[in-house]
Structure formats: C-alpha cells, structure tokens
C-alpha cells in the first residue's frame, strides 16, 4: 500500500505527483494500465475533474480505481459542475471509500469545453471550497448540522505563478493559505524565476505549505502556441517555443520531455520548491521517461 | 388646410428636348394637391420669375415644385422668388429634369421626368416652413498657444477689433522660437513686445485649458491659471499648440551633435566661441507622411550656410518636397551651396579627434563618401504637443493617424475643425512650417472675423429638431454628432432630453438616421419626405 500523501508531504524531501486524466467513456483498460505503470513511481496520482470542461469519467471513480490498486489518489473537485450540496456529498463518499486527499479548484470556464451550452454552477469559489472541506473536517456540514461520522481530508489547491498581472492572483493565494492548505500545486510553469518569486511569497505566509511545481511538457512549437492561445493559465515563453521549433521532425515529444526533465532537475537541485506535479495529459505512459530523464527513477 | 402645390416646368431655353412638356404638364396637373401647372422656357430669367411670382399670388399657391435644371445651380434664385411672393423659401422642391434626366439619357424621357416631378410633388406636400432667427455671438476669442502662430493670430485678431485672450502653458510667450530673432524671417521678440502693448490682447501665461463647454459664439472655457481656476466665455477658439521634438532621437545631444532646433538656437547665439566650419546633417526620415523633419532640416541647413558660410552637407535617404514651399526651399538651399548626399544604407557615425565622422555610400555617385564635420545635426522625432490627446477628447475633435489635429479632409481643409468656431493653426496640424503658418493664420483670422465680427448671426431655426416627447434621452445623437451640436436640455417637467444647437449644427442628418426612437425631425430630409419620394417609384 502506498503511503498516505499527508505523510509523504511531511517526510519526503522531493515530492513527485502525476496527473491522471479519466477517459471519455466507460472502458477502464487504459486508465488501469496507466495506474499500474505509475502508482509506484510517483507519490500520488492526481485525478482531474472534467478537465478543461470536457465531460469525462468522474474523478471520484478513477480515484477509487487507484485506491483499489494500491495507489495514492488525490481527488480534484472543481466548483463548476456541482453546487454546495453535491460537493459535500461527494466528499463524504470519497472519504468513506478511503480517499484522503482533495485538491480544491475553481475549474475552467464552461466556454472552453465541449458542452458550451451547459449552465455553469460556481455556487462556491475555490477559497470557499477549502473552507467547506475544513468545515466538514470539523464534523459539521455547511449549514451547521452535525455529521454522523466525520472526515479528515488533506487539502491542496492550485495557483498560477505566471499570471499577468500577478498581484490579484497572490491576493487570492493568500486567502487560500489563510483558509488552510497542506500543499499548492501550480499551474504549468516554464519560467523558474516566476516560480521562485511565487514560492517566496508562499513561504512568507505559511512556511509549512508544500509547493509542487506544475510541469506540462510542451511537445512542439505549434502545440505550445495552441496552449498559449487556448489553455487558461498557461504561458509558454517564446524561447521554449523556439527551442521546440528547432527540434528535428518527429522528435518534438522527446524534445518536450528533455526540456521538462531539465526543469525538474533544476527545481530539485536548486531546491526551488518541494516537488513537482507532472501533467502529461493523454501521454501518461511517457511519464516514467520524464522521471528517468530527470534522475528521479 | 390641404396644401396647394404649384408646379413650374421649364425647358431651360429649349435645351431640354427629349421631354414632351405639354403631356407632362397635363399628367402632373392630375396629381393630388397640384393646384397649378405652368410651362416655361425662361423661369430663372427676369420675365419668368415675375410671371412665377404673380402666379404664386394669383393662384394662392403655398408649396412650389420647380422642374428644371439642377437645384445646385438655381435653387437660390427660386427661393428668392418664393420669398418675394411672401412664401417661406423652404417650401420649394426643385426637380432636376435637366442634368439628371434629359441630358443623362438618350431617347424620350417624358415618363421618367413625370416620375421625378411626382417625387418632387410628394415631397413638397410635406414641406414645412423654416423660420430664421438671430443669435447673438460673443466676440471674444481664445487663442491657445503662445508660439509664432498663436501670437500672429492674436495680433491680427486684435487688429480687426476682436478681443483676444492668449493662453500659454509656459511662463513666457514665444514658444519654440523664443529667443529666435531674424532667423527665417521671424521677429519673435518684437512680436512679444507688440502683444504686451496691445490693449485688445490679454495674456495668460502658465495656463491651461481644463474644460470646454458650449458651442460657437458661446463657449464656456475653464482655464487653470497658475493655481487658480477661472471660467470665461468666448465666441471662438484657436488652437496653436505646436509640436514637440525629441523623445527617441538616436543621438544624445553633445557639443558636436545637435538637432535642427538646437542648431537654430546656436545660429541665433551671438556669443558662440567658434563657428563650426563644416556642418553635416543626417536626415533619415522614417515618417514619410510628415513634412516637418524635411522642413526643419532644409530651413536650418540653409540658415547655417547663409549665416556661417562654411560647408554644409545633408546626408539624406530621400527628401520629399511635396509640402507647400518645400521645393523652392530645397532649390534655394542647393543654389546657396548646400550639398546633398543620397544614401540608402544608414551612414556610419563615429567620433574622431573632437569631430564627427560620417561615412556613407553615395548611391548617385556609387562611391563611399566620408565627411569629418565640426557639428552633426541629427534628425529628431516630431510628435504632437504633450496634452494634444487629452485636448482633442476634451473638444471632441479628431486627430490624424500621427496624433496631430486635422486629418486631410478636403471639406475641412485647411484650418477649420469639425466644430464650428474651433480652429487649428500652425504646427499642431502636423505639416506646417513657417511659410504656411502665415497663410493659415490669415485664413483663421478672416474666418473668425466673418463669423464673430457682426456679433450676431442669422440661422435657420429648428431645421433639425428633437421631439422632446419622443426622445428617450439615450444619448445616441449626442455621441454620434460629428459636430458636437447636440446637448441635453431640461424640459418643462424636469426631464432631460436631447437638444440640437441650430448654430453648431451643420445639417448632416446623422442624428436623424440613428435615433432609435425616431424622435429627430430634419425638415427637408425628414423620414416622411424621403419615404414620400420613394413612394413615387413605379407610379406615374
């Protein structure tokens, strides 16, 4: 059995997590394959919740699958698709089935996804969601009613260190820290100076919070440009796009992996933050390659 | 009472041949409200006019249709006939059966002429009289900017008896040419003295315009003078706010490097230790739309040659001489011995033994040229004066793509703005230079004198008019009017509605077309009048 993530956060020097995106459909063979491949190579697998507002198999279901196979799962919950009743119910259910970690996010806008005409919920925002988990942890629901059997989640959240302007972002991160989280997983970072500045800000507020740098390998100049244009919160700098553009044909993926591994190495060697979170959506099978390249396997 | 329309058809001295006039006359007479039809051959001549006038009275006509030549040529004449017969001159519809019917087509066009006349009759039926009214105008003028153009304007206005306030942002008059005396024919110091002794001119230094409200003849201008703020009323405003140089010049000014403006001041200085013997200009204008850099370069190169003698070289990529006076300036400079070297690639510039070395490839000779000069005059960037943007949004007037006042709209050219009573003169217009400023100033002064001199003006009342009951105060017209002629007014019950200022209105009808409540009537071009003309298609 994997170590509870809460323990890992406290004890491990350099933490490594990876993102696992659920499938569109009910065929579990691919997710199972990925889980088997990664569960012992990383400290936790983090499962997205209708990522980019594209409808998929639920995060909760995939988390259970990870749990069943002996991995450590982090449940992502966004505020986009569920109101406060549904969120509380899901959290109770997750806890009852042995999932002990939750990542609280706002969620991408409906407009970027594949169900653009859906009604966005956003009954809560991410700060309120963190407060909500604490409320449940304390044995009460949001309305103040007692719970029969409480919960005790390890709470994480996200942030965008490369936002422009950064100040309003930081105000919000400050609120998240005040609400109380154990770890922050950043949106994809490419400029490590930005990451350094961000970590400094977090340390000043709360030295115990672990920061995991978000690593999204950009596999080709076109894809990087596409992400800049279309994926909220991602800013791939021009020099990386140029580096990718120079890669020989067919070598985009390995170039992307090389750049990612280089960044991870630097993060670790310079102790910029406490670990990394690798998001290689749709190419989970390549994650070990990154880890190996970065000297983490 | 139903309108009684008189239709006068004229064959213009027999020059309209392809219309059957008697048939047309007979058919038109059957149209509703047509009380009288007359055929003529000399309607615009003395006899024709007299006959028309007596018919108007005899037949008790109250709307007139004239079918003859283009209204652009003779509308005025017929309006006078109407007025002579005691009718409002506006109750006239001129139908163009000559230029746009008879002469525009080959064969018999009686049918078409009939339709055109029907369109005219339809329109005439709906015409309403437009009264005239006299509006008093404030005769005082505000001139903003105490440089050459501002000062000249003030002096000339004062000579014509219009009191003027001359406003200058800096603490003293003179502007860019302060301290320049006798250079390119400028007499700045004597001008300043003249103004100081002129009782008709009041000078406000260290002052700025804060707000402009109202309209021609009655602008209320809030002025910040030092630390105090005051409000004054003016009939007209002249902006002579000039331009600025510098900003991103590629060279730092030093003892051996200067700008055309710096050179002008050196030329003026009497205590110069040593006259530079060789002067090299580098003129690499990237902004080909502006004539100002070329003007400044040529002017100072010529002056340097004339005043200091010595050698003067102008390294240039291209000198565009299509501005006023530029070509003769260029020729004059060449005749005086200024040498022009044309390059394509930027010259190399380096410092050497206290001099400046310019190396360039002369594309006309096809060889490399090197010049060691005592003084390098580098081109500057010309930009609108600081605050031009703020002022233009304050005034609601447009600037051109470079941010100077005035675009080259042929209808507003040269000095008028889209707002009546507001003028721009001098270098704030982007392409001026000393020679043109002189003519521009006279042009502004004459326009202002014509406008404000009499102290009153006769305008048509309510030609374009807002129906306060229908107005929803959506401010669409206020925002859309290109002449800032629409404001808000409170009606009896206290509600605010749009109001059109007759004097500032230029009669374009944009507001009438855009009003979502259809609350604006434009007499002569009202919706009903236009639709009545459309109605006549296919009816004959």
């Amino acid at each position, binding site marked *: 059995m994997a170590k509870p993530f809460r323990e890992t956060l406290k004890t491990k020097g350099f933490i490594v997590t990876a993102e696992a995106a659920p499938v569109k459909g009910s065929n579990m063979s691919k997710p199972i394959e990925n889980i088997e491949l990664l569960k012992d190579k990383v400290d936790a697998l983090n499962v997205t919740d209708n990522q980019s507002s594209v409808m998929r198999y639920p995060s909760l279901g995939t988390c259970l699958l990870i749990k069943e196979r002996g991995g450590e799962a982090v449940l992502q919950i966004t*505020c*986009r698709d569920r109101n*406060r009743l549904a969120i509380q119910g899901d959290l109770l259910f997750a806890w009852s089935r042995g999932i002990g970690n939750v990542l609280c*996010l*706002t*969620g*991408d*806008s409906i*407009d*970027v996804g594949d169900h653009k005409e859906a009604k*966005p919920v*956003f*009954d*809560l*925002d*991410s*700060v*309120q969601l963190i*407060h*909500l988990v604490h409320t449940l942890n304390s044995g009460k629901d*949001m309305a103040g009613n007692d719970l029969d059997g409480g919960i005790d989640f390890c709470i994480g959240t*996200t*942030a*965008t260190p490369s*936002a*422009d*302007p950064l*100040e*309003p*972002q930081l*105000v*919000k991160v*400050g*609120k998240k820290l*005040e*609400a109380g989280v154990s770890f922050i997983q950043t*949106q994809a970072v490419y400029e490590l100076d930005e990451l350094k500045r961000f970590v400094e800000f977090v340390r000043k507020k709360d030295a115990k919070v672990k920061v995991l740098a978000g690593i999204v390998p950009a596999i080709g100049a076109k894809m990087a440009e596409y992400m800049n244009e279309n994926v*909220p*919160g991602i*800013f791939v700098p021009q020099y990386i796009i140029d580096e990718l553009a120079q890669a020989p044909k067919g070598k985009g993926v390995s170039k992307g992996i090389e750049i990612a591994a280089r960044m991870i190495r630097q993060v670790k060697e310079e102790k910029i933050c406490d670990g990394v979170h690798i998001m290689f959506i749709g190419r989970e099978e390549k994650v070990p390659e990154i880890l190996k390249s970065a000297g983490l396997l | 009472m139903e309108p009684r329309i008189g239709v006068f058809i004229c064959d213009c001295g027999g020059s309209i041949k392809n219309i059957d006039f008697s048939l047309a006359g007979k058919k038109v007479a059957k149209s509703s409200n047509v009380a009288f039809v007359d055929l003529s051959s000399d309607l615009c001549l003395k006899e024709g006019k007299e006959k028309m006038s007596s018919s108007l009275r005899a037949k008790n006509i109250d709307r007139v249709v004239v079918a003859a030549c283009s209204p652009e040529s003779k509308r005025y004449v017929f309006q006078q006939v109407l007025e002579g017969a005691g009718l409002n001159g506006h109750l006239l519809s001129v139908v163009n059966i000559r230029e746009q019917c008879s002469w525009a087509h080959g064969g018999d066009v009686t049918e078409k002429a009939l339709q055109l006349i029907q369109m005219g009759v339809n329109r005439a039926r709906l015409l309403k009289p437009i009264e005239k009214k006299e509006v008093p105008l404030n005769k005082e003028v505000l001139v903003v900017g105490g440089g050459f153009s501002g000062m000249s304007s003030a002096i000339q206005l004062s000579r014509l008896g219009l009191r003027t306030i001359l406003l200058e942002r800096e603490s003293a008059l003179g502007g860019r040419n302060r301290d320049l005396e006798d250079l390119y024919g400028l007499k700045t110091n004597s001008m300043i003295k003249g103004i100081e002794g002129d009782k008709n001119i009041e000078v406000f230094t260290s002052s700025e315009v804060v707000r402009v409200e109202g309209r021609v003849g009655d602008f209320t201008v809030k002025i910040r003078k030092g630390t105090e703020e005051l409000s004054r009323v003016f009939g007209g405003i002249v902006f002579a706010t000039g331009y600025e140089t510098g900003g991103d010049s590629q060279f730092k000014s030093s003892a051996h490097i200067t700008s055309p403006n710096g050179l002008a001041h050196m030329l003026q200085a009497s205590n110069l230790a040593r006259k530079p013997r060789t002067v090299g200009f580098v003129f690499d204008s990237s902004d080909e739309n502006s004539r100002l850099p070329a003007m400044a370069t040529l002017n100072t190169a010529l002056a340097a040659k004339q005043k200091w003698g010595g050698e003067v070289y102008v390294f240039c990529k291209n000198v565009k001489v299509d501005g006023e006076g530029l070509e003769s300036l260029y020729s004059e400079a060449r005749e005086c011995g200024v040498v022009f070297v044309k390059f394509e690639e930027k010259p190399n510039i380096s410092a050497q033994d206290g001099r400046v070395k310019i190396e360039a490839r002369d594309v006309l000779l096809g060889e490399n040229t090197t010049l060691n000069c005592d003084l390098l005059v580098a081109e500057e960037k010309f930009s609108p004066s600081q605050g031009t943007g703020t002022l233009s949004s304050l005034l609601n007037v447009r600037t051109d793509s470079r941010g100077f006042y005035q675009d080259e709209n042929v209808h507003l050219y040269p000095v008028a703005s889209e707002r009546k009573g507001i003028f721009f003169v001098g270098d704030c217009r982007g392409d001026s230079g000393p020679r043109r400023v002189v003519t521009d100033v006279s042009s502004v002064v004459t326009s202002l004198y014509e406008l404000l001199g009499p102290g009153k003006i006769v305008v048509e009342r309510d030609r374009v008019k807002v129906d306060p009951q*229908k107005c*929803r*105060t*959506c*401010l*669409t017209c206020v*925002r*859309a009017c290109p002449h800032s002629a629409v404001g808000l007014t409170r009606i009896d019950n206290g509600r605010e509605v749009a109001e059109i200022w007759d004097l500032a209105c230029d009669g374009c009808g944009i507001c009438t077309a855009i*009003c*979502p*409540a*259809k609350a604006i009537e434009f007499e002569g071009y009202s919706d009903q009048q236009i639709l009545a003309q459309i109605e006549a298609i296919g009816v004959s």
Partner: protein
Amino acid sequence: MIIAERKPMEEIKQVIAPYKKVLLAGCGTCVTVCWSGGEKEVGILASQLRLARGTEGKDHAILEATVERQCEKEMAEELRSKVAEVDAVLSLACGIGVQTMAEIFEEKPIFPALNTTFLGMPEKEGVWVEMCGACGDCFLDRTGSVCPIVRCAKGLLNGPCGGTRKGGKCEIDPQKDCAWVLIYRRLEKQGRLDLMQKYYPPKNFRAVKRPGKIQAIKA
C-alpha cells in the same frame, strides 16, 4: 437598463407564419435606448417582414405601433384597438413587456421578437456591457463597485481564477477584462486593498425568492 437583441429571423418568421395580420409592438424605454425595440427597429423589422411575406392586403398585413413602456399595463393598454385588429402580436419589448402584454391581451398570442440579454450600460455608442445580475444581495461595497457576480465569467467572490489571460483579460475572451483585475486596480487606487484580502463566505443565492416579488411600504 435592460439590454436585448433581436431574435434570429428564422425564429421570428416561424412563429408568425400561421398569422395573417400581425402587429409589431415596440417599446419606448430600455429597448429603444439599446437599439433593439424602439420605433426605428419596429420599422425595420416590419419592412423586412413585408418583403419576406410578399404582397400585403386587407387581411394580410404587418402593423406597427410603439408605446412608452410595455411593462406598464396602463401604457400597454393604449395598443388595445390595434391588437384587436390583428391575429397575433410580435412584441419588441423585453421579456417583461411581452408578459405584461400577454396578461392584458389574454385572448391573443403575443410573441417575443427579442432575446432579453442582461442589465447593462452603454460603453460607447452602440456597445452595451453587462453590469448587474440582479442577485438581490449586492456585493459592490466590497469590490470597489465592480460586480464580480456578472463581470467575472465564473462569478467568483474571493479573487481571480487561475485562467486570467496576459494583461488582465478574461479566460474566456481576450477582448474582455478580468473583473478581479479591475477590482484589484480600483481598490489599489483607493488604498482599500484590505477589502480584497478579506475572505467572503459563499453567497446567499436565494436572496431573491423565486418568483421574486417586492411589496413596497404602503404610503
């Protein structure tokens, strides 16, 4: 002010297709001001429909009329004689006007010609932007008077999401400003950033009990 825009032509043609004589009823207030349902728009739509439906006759016609406010029964009442003449009414008012008309002319089908879109302000001539969500629990005192409920795409109360685009633009549209960046800048200007640092608990989304009804104190 209520902002609306005209429905697609196909939809309009379809709903009035079964009716021979139709009255286009404009409204002289909000929708006039936002260029969607005033006298001018009534004229344009009427003209379009006449062209689309072909020849007019005694029983087959498009009528036009505009009243000051369709959402006031007394004012909508002015249309009674015209409504009596026709088989159906196409109302160029907001949803409120359409329903008011339907209430007083119960026997006639009243159709909407507009989509009521939001409560907004004219940004410049011809451009309107959403400003208020009529949530019944105004939050503006805490945000430098920029409404995050409707001007933030997600209606967040505690700061921007992580998707803000470069230069402080919204995740979903680079043409639109991120409300939270606007809030930050305004509060910063006023030296009141502490307001933004405060935590705001989940909003009461039931401040208005649907269907909303307010009883003013009787005078």
